[in-house]
């Protein structure tokens, strides 16, 4: 089954508004309000039968963060992509952890790196970065920090102990003297 057929099937059965996006990989656009409804249908409908949430991620577009849900069916051997835009001003999306336990960590990663709050997530903590990290690195407006909090350790300058650099320079000088 290709994405067009799936789109028509979902449109006929589900009340939430969806939209078919053309492109190199066709996908189905869902608003956050209808996300859980559509994905539940995709999981439970025998024709779609998407038992596996194979990938959940997001990407920062201009003023929104677009979430991508890649659903896979082992039985039918097809893969559908669902997109869900959430506004950057209020990045909130419903969690699908209740549908697929795999979403737990995938959503935690998206929260960690892109700062999307998944409502209803049982354990929304940072997963890759330290708990006290500031900012969300995969957003395009992220500014790479020059120090870790107030540690005073400036990451932009050469922090090697002076002894190392000195001995390096000295040995160079010695060589010259030898010549």
């Amino acid at each position, binding site marked *: 089954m290709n994405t067009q057929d799936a789109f028509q099937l979902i449109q006929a059965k589900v009340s939430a508004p969806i939209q078919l996006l053309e492109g190199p990989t066709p996908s189905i656009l869902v608003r956050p309000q209808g996300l859980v409804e559509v994905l539940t249908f995709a999981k439970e409908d025998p024709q779609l039968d998407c*038992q596996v949430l194979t990938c959940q991620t997001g990407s920062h577009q201009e003023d929104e963060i677009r979430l991508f849900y890649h659903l896979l069916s082992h039985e039918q051997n097809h893969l559908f992509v669902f997109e869900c835009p959430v506004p950057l001003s209020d990045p909130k999306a419903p969690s699908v952890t209740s549908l697929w*336990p795999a979403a737990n960590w995938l959503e935690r990663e998206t929260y960690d790196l892109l700062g999307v709050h998944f409502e209803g997530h049982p354990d929304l903590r940072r997963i890759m970065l330290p708990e006290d990290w500031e900012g969300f690195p995969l957003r395009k407006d992220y500014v790479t920090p020059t120090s870790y909090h107030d540690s005073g350790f400036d990451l932009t300058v050469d922090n090697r102990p002076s002894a190392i650099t000195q001995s390096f320079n000295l040995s160079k000088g010695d060589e010259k003297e030898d010549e």
Partner: protein
Amino acid sequence: MNKELTTQFMTINMGPQHPSTHGVIRFIIDTDGEIIHRCDPDIGYLHRSIEKIAEKVTWQGFVPYTDRVDYLCAMNANWAYSMAVEKMIGVEAPRRAEFIRVIVAELNRISSHLIAIGTTAMDMGAFTPFIQLLREREYINDLLEMASGARLTYNYICIGGVMADLPLGWSEKCEEFIHHFDLAMEQMNRLVTYNQIFINRMANLAVVSPQMAQAYNLVGPNLRASGIKRDVRRDAPYSVYPELDFEIPVGKGLEGEVGDCYDRFFVRVEEIRESLRILRQCLKMIPEGEVMAKVKKTIKPPAGHYYVRHETPRGDTGYFIQSDGTTSPYRLKIRSGSFTGMSIIGELAKGTFIADLVAIIGSLDVVAPELDR
């Protein structure tokens, strides 16, 4: 003396430096004596922000970074990324290059599975098989070094083909190795796989039902061990795999239930056998010809998002790539098998012994750099 005796769980930090976490991973475990009550994996110690780096480098420039995503099967990672970009820009690698890719990737799959099997055996306390398997892996490293010049991070498969043709006489050396390795693998099976102590440790432990495997998105050997016959090489065939004759081993519950640790272990052993079959066929079928397609120096794939699946030793690895038509990726996400494999450990470890947790980690073949990226 009316005080009641109260007991509490003992919280133990397993890791980040622990002999059997295979890299820098931490498990916070609450135990009741030796029995695990709660296990919370804490990952991220090896996060190198590879996905962020991808947004700063060119399309070709990212290939060496894929080596570092999963250094136990760098060939497969190279290939997965190159395949994704080739699909985006509509380039097809020459036929000889495709065969070379299959050969080196299957060799790399064997070497990765050897590490998986060896470390599992080592975690069970059998140190000798690990060293023996590493010795076999050295032979594979030699072969791959002859082809690519590197032993761990190859950077061999590139967008449009492979870096260089195989050296003269390489095929003969590879056949020699296959002949030797067949015997070595038999010996290894006698030493570990059919060892009764080993079977007792692994059988009926941490059983993953097919439903659970799907819900937790297990991939590759872990998924197949639960009895689901799914392999990207068959489902979404790429390269020359449709022409090759190989089986997809699934867990049969040889010593216990389907989907236990022993099945996960045994599926890898069987996969090594199938990889050897593929290698034999490829070495016979490999044609002469070019190994590099014509690729523009500056790649600018059309805008849009792509998702390419590739069967690495750790299973279905997905490269989600979003392009905005410029010279570097707009967003790149690597969906790795270890990540979802790790998320199931908290569930599986409940009620098992500390010694079992080690077996579970080993049987799921979690590789820390791929996990944290």
